[in-house]
């Protein structure tokens, strides 16, 4: 517990710090938030744990409740590019999104843009079957750019509303793979001017402070539009999203709460903050 000498009671600071840090908000962000409370609250309020907690919840809610309009499906087709490091839940999230939009009567085309990992295409194909939509794939070890190009062309020809492009998981530290991502973005624009209309970065809620680095690097490489936070059905709180929203202003569109096709929800700031504090 740091410099809260006059103001917050030390026991309360310890308790709040433990709560914030163990939810992966990060020690720096936690300290910044607790420091900020001193400006926001009066001397009396700082002595009242209930008032302090309420103000802290409001502060965090203010940071993560970023305004984002629903995905506009009027771009003939809207192209959604899904990216992120290995194993975070990109392919599964795409399957869930495809099912949601197909159930809403929209025409969806999926691009099997992970041509590298074992059985990645088969995995997306099964999701396509579950969702009831077309999956465009290439031959074994095809260039992901050509698969994505072909998928967008097909989506245009079939007057699809949405084309979701799956990409291979990649660590942001791998320069050549990040360059490939930039190339894929250029190819999408070539296939359909204005594409990709949305770049969705998928983050795993069990990830610690490295998620901030991921968000920074992916944003720098391909201009991320929004985030999906998966595996919130576990014990991890995904608190690292607070620092990401604060620093990069990226909105969280969706959360993943399980492995089944319906386990996708729109991000709700109140629920998210509520879960952090329970």
């Amino acid at each position, binding site marked *: 517990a740091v410099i809260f000498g006059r103001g917050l009671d030390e026991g309360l600071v310890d308790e709040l710090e433990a709560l914030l840090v*163990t939810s992966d908000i990060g020690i720096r962000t936690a300290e910044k938030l607790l420091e900020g409370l001193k400006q926001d609250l009066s001397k009396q309020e700082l002595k009242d744990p209930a008032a302090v907690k309420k103000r802290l919840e409001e502060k965090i809610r203010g940071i993560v409740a970023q305004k984002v309009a629903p995905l506009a499906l009027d771009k003939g087709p809207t192209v959604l590019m899904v990216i992120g490091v290995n*194993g975070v839940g990109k392919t599964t999230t795409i399957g869930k999104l495809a099912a949601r939009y197909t159930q809403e009567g929209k025409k969806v085309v999926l691009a099997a843009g992970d041509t590298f990992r*074992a059985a990645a295409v*088969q995995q997306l194909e099964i999701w396509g079957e579950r969702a009831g939509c077309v999956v465009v794939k290439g031959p074994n070890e095809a260039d992901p750019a050509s698969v994505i190009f072909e998928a967008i062309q097909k989506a245009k020809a079939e007057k699809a509303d949405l084309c979701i492009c799956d990409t291979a998981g990649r660590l942001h530290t791998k320069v050549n793979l990040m360059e490939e991502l930039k190339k894929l973005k250029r190819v999408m624009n070539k296939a359909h001017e204005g594409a990709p209309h949305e770049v969705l970065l998928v983050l795993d809620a069990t990830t610690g402070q490295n998620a901030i680095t991921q968000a920074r690097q992916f944003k720098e490489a391909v201009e991320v539009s929004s985030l999906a936070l998966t595996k919130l059905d576990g014990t991890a709180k995904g608190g690292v999203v607070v620092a990401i929203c604060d620093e990069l202003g990226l909105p969280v569109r969706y959360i993943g709460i399980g492995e089944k096709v319906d386990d996708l929800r729109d991000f709700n700031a109140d629920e998210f903050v509520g879960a952090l504090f329970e």
Partner: protein
Amino acid sequence: NLEDKLSEILKKVRGHGTLSEDNIKEALRDVRLSLLEADVHFTVVKDFINAVKERAVGQEVKASLTPTQDFIRIVSEELTKIMGGRAAELDLKKKPPVIILMMGLQGSGKTTTTGKLALRLKGQGKKPLVVPADVQRPAAIDQLKTVAGQVGVDCYDTKPGMKAPDIAKLALAQADRQGQDVVLVDTAGRLAIDLELMEELREVKGILNPHYTLLVVDAMTGQDAVNVATEFKNQIGIDGVVMTKLDGDARGGAALSVRAVTGAPIYFAGIGEKMEALEVFYPDRIAQRILG
């Protein structure tokens, strides 16, 4: 090395010459911040700092002529106590087949690691059988079969619709008949709080009676590492750990948390997506990395 890393952190403290109780506090704060930023669990850090503090403010440092060096030595010793001094090795000199069960959260790298481990053991003269016991993830069976083909090892022919415990039984029987001397069983990713899936894992373990039950942990895991390690240890039992995706820039504090909570050796480090990307885990290297 570790000492250099700590010296760096304590640079501001060194300027004071002798180590007083005040600048020990400051040094401890810096070490604490560094560990928390590296994703080491809040409580693990608290216990660690207290252990260091107890020794640092005690006679050990007070009477010393080289207090800063002693402080550094204490931190390094306490870290080594948790992480372990040297690399741990799997003991494969057991009556064959040696049975290895892979478990962990969704997406941690189990299937990939199963392939990597099979390749490594093949290189050591073993005849591995990999067993796809994940029957829920789409194309999981395909994934392990493909990987087995890439590394040139036998793969049990799991059919969709089979149940994990039956797969385990049949695969063991096959290894018996065909003479494979290591059996590596890949399982579905699961949450430790998923009662049904943890029960399934217990059942599979009961059938296999594995020599090694390995928890596969993603190096970028944050505070949740303690929950995961504790639950898997209490409910299933952990003989060892594999930490994956260490080729990224995550500091890997989860390694310290998992070690502190389970005491299980971390045998291997996954350092890439290719089948060759598996190496022995070096505790002192990761301790340096965690300190930043």
